[in-house]
């Protein structure tokens, strides 16, 4: 009997291992922000923030916040040496122009066709898309980062999204706290599973088409 325990850190840790030095990465608000904590020490990624900076640094020391230096979530941040600032048109030129290697976004629903819904629950929660639609449409590789299940117990991985889409067919990979999937041929392809979960358990608990890759393995890191 396998019992599911939500684990956001395992998602962030796995995603951080995709990056290589020099990659330009945009991390969304919430769970995706955690990814920044796990980038290996020997890898230097360039973090982009859509409000207008490249070379995002850590939070400032207490008392050193600058009112003119925030991230896209309005939190005070710092900029690393060699970083730079730009206006919103340039920022989205970077994003839409394919100059961002990875964007990592949160999920309300993601489906096997690579559709993502993460900005609106009609009649309930309408925060707006912000920069998410541009990030998903423009980034080279789109990673959806999410706990595998909703509070209700249903998997967030679907046959077909029912909520309004953020973008159609743009998601490349999904990393949850049970495994890592790539989107291919209208299916979720399970590449890695995280113990104690097994491919059989994941397929049983997920109402979507999943195939297990021939080289799928148990990832213990």
């Amino acid at each position: 009997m396998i019992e599911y325990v939500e684990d956001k850190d395992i998602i962030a840790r796995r995603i951080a291992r995709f990056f290589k030095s020099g990659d330009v990465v945009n991390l969304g608000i919430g769970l995706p922000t955690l990814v920044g904590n796990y980038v290996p020490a020997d890898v230097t990624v360039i973090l982009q923030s859509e409000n207008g900076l490249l070379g995002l640094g850590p939070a400032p020391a207490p008392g050193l916040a600058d009112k003119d230096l925030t991230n896209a979530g309005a939190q005070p941040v710092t900029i690393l040496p060699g970083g730079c600032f730009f206006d919103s048109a340039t920022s989205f030129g970077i994003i839409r122009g394919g100059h961002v290697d990875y964007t990592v976004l949160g999920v309300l629903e993601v489906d096997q066709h690579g559709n993502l819904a993460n900005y609106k629950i009609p009649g309930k929660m309408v925060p707006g898309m912000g920069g998410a639609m541009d990030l998903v449409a423009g980034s080279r590789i789109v990673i959806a980062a999410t706990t595998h299940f909703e509070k209700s117990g249903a998997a967030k991985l679907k046959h077909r999204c029912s909520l309004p889409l953020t973008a159609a067919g743009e998601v490349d990979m999904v990393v949850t706290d049970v495994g890592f999937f790539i989107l291919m041929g209208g299916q979720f392809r399970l590449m890695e599973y995280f113990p104690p979960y097994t491919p059989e358990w994941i397929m049983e608990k997920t109402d979507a088409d999943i195939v297990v890759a021939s080289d799928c393995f148990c990832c213990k890191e």
Partner: protein
Amino acid sequence: MIEKPVIGTAEAAAMVKSGAVVHVGGFLGCGSPDKVLAALVAAGTKNLTLVCNDTAVINAKTGVANGVAPLIQNHQFSRAIVSHIGTNAETQRQMNAGEMIVDLVPQGTLAERIRAAGNGLGGILTPTGVGTEVEEGKTKLTVNDKVYLLEEPLPGDVALIKARKADRAGNLVYSKTARNFNPLMATACTLVIAEVEEIVEIGDIDPDQVHTPSIFVDYLVKG
């Protein structure tokens, strides 16, 4: 070089007439012209259309409102054209109650529509929003086998922007991420009022370091 008038905040607010389309710089309040916005709250001008990245932040715990949020609370906008309203519960309430129309626009599309308005373009083609609700009612064009949406320019009557520094000619320099939409809005509105922290003499800003050329700016306000 011609000097630009330096006016007070109340005088600036009085230039915003009822019914105007007002572009306001800032990203969740960072880089908004707070002094001019406070004067506009005091003036109480209604029936405005807001063009801004977002409707700023009302802190759920403290109730502190920044950027354009006090104008929202004061019911001064009948319409808001923005990319994000998730940090202002009052915007959501007014939208749900039918007190204010909210048009949600993807952030990059918003930036380009403003840029198009200020740059003499009839619109822009973007892949953002294809296959989503955003495409509804819009012309789709296929260029080199890729589908784009035609997004129209978004001009304004008045731009209320914020810069770190101006010279008396109106050349502007922004600070860090407080730049955001400000330089785009400076190009896109009939009347441009720049609130700045410091006004220096003509010649004191290196021409190579100017972010917004003086010709876009009509009035300066010392913030």
